[in-house]
């Protein structure tokens, strides 16, 4: 079955046509290595610096504070390992949350194995951290606070400005994984006191394999990759110029169009959420009702399992994702859904539908038409549903 309705934009997005056109000349015409001196190399160098300025402008940073990486995961790894190493003389304690992406959590676990102490902040039922808990967790030896801007599964947006204020007050470096947020919600690293920020190209219409790390001037970060003088020795390796051109253009477009895109997506999102909650019993919204990413809808259906739901949706040409154990490749459901307090039976039946600029109201209507029947079909073969219905009688 061909995918006709793409509702997994939090996983990745197609490269935008405008972005593709911008990138193409850098494969065959302007293929020079930006570190060289001849003419075509200068084209690459020019493109590199233009993209750096575009990315900086998208988050109100200075161009020299942007370092290109191979993606969000590399940016997250660099931020955590690089800061912990650079500030080792101050201490070895970092604060993060229980709902971070694994690029943060697995790096934190690695650092713990190598002597770091990590505090994992709890979140409330909507997925928000408590500012009081955060402030209480800060110790003299705390070197880093890393809190994601917006959650990839449930879409909840954290109080980033307030976190930035707390970090600044205590003189602790503040990193945010903004992979899901850049280009989707307004970000101002100055106003929000953000010291480091991770972003990824393929979540906003640029190709896969390109990302960036914003590092505030004056903040020390040891490099993760050694080998050359690229990116001011912060990140060795010949620059991925096509990718870099792509992320620059995509970031510029996303920010310029944000107001219109957000208005459209919020309307679609709320129609989808309300429509599902109204027509399908035993369903609940995961994440914050309003402080959430414009295109994110995450709903749990009791008594059914997520992968089955995805397979039936796929059979109708609908691409979506789930936090069930069977789709995570492990035997446990999503750590994010566990952290917001969902019981296993509700976490297994979660469905994430994430929209972007190409999605339409007709598509939302189609899902609202088909979903109740699909959920009921699975409930009809579920022994858990049968037991629950008998108990209700």
């Amino acid at each position, binding site marked *: 079955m061909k995918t006709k309705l793409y509702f997994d934009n939090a996983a990745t997005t197609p490269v935008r046509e405008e972005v593709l056109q911008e990138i193409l000349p850098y494969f065959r015409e302007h293929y020079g290595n930006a570190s060289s001196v001849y003419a075509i190399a200068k084209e690459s160098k020019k493109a590199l610096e233009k993209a750096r300025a575009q990315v900086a402008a998208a988050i109100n940073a200075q161009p020299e504070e942007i370092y290109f990486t191979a993606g969000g995961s590399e940016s997250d790894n660099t931020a955590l390992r690089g800061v912990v190493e650079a500030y080792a003389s101050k201490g070895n304690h970092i604060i993060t949350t229980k709902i971070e992406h694994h690029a943060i959590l697995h790096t934190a676990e690695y650092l713990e194995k190598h002597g770091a102490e990590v505090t994992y902040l709890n979140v409330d039922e909507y997925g928000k951290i408590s500012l009081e808990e955060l402030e209480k967790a800060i110790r003299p030896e705390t070197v880093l606070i890393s809190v994601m801007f917006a959650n990839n599964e449930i879409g909840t947006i954290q109080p980033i400005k307030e976190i930035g204020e707390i970090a600044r007050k205590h003189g602790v470096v503040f990193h945010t994984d903004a992979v899901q947020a850049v280009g989707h919600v307004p970000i101002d690293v100055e106003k929000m006191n953000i010291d480091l920020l991770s972003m990824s190209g393929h979540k906003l219409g640029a190709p896969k394999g390109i990302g960036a790390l914003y590092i505030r001037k004056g903040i020390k970060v040891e490099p993760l990759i050694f080998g050359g003088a690229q990116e001011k020795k912060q990140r060795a390796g010949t620059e991925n110029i096509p990718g870099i051109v792509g992320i620059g253009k995509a970031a510029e477009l996303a920010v310029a169009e944000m107001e219109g895109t957000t208005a459209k997506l919020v309307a679609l999102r709320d129609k989808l959420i309300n429509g599902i909650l109204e027509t399908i019993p035993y369903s609940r919204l995961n994440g914050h009702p309003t402080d959430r990413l414009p295109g994110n809808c995450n709903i749990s259906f009791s*008594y*059914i*399992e997520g*992968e*089955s739901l995805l*397979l*039936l949706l796929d*059979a109708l040409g609908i691409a979506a994702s789930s936090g*069930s*154990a*069977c*789709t995570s*490749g492990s*035997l*446990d*459901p999503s750590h994010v859904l566990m952290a917001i307090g969902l*019981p*296993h*039976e509700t976490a*297994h039946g979660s469905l994430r539908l994430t929209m972007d600029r190409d999605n339409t109201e007709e598509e939302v209507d189609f899902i609202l038409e088909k979903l109740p029947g699909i959920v009921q079909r699975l409930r*009809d*073969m*579920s*022994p*858990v*549903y*049968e037991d629950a219905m008998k108990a209700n009688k």
Partner: protein
Amino acid sequence: MEYSEKVMDHFMNPRNVGEIENASGVGQVGNMKCGDIMKVYLQIEDGKIVDAKFKTFGCGAAVATSSMATELVKGKTIQEALEVTNKAVMEALDGLPPVKVHCSCLAEEALHAALWDYAQKNNITIDGLKPPVNDVDELHHHE
């Protein structure tokens, strides 16, 4: 991870979904933690399985293995049904992705649990049948 055509067929068009009223034997295995629960109903007459039905909460592989396992035991004697192992169910489905092998273990366990229930009800012993495993985590560790 990709399912075989057979798995997808048994998932999209599962055979034997439902319940058997006053079934000769009913077995339920699995737990909510890992997210797979299978309930198998068997109708046994003169030592033969004349009908089998199931209800399953779980992934595509869990539904498909339930469907295939009930298909395979229908018409078989109890002793023949004991030979419907997880391996047999998996082979009949043209294989399962490695992370889904535990689902085929559940199907075998659910069948055995239903047979065990039948044996208990009728106060008989079935050679080679062990009591059902309640803790499915044990199954996972055998992978």
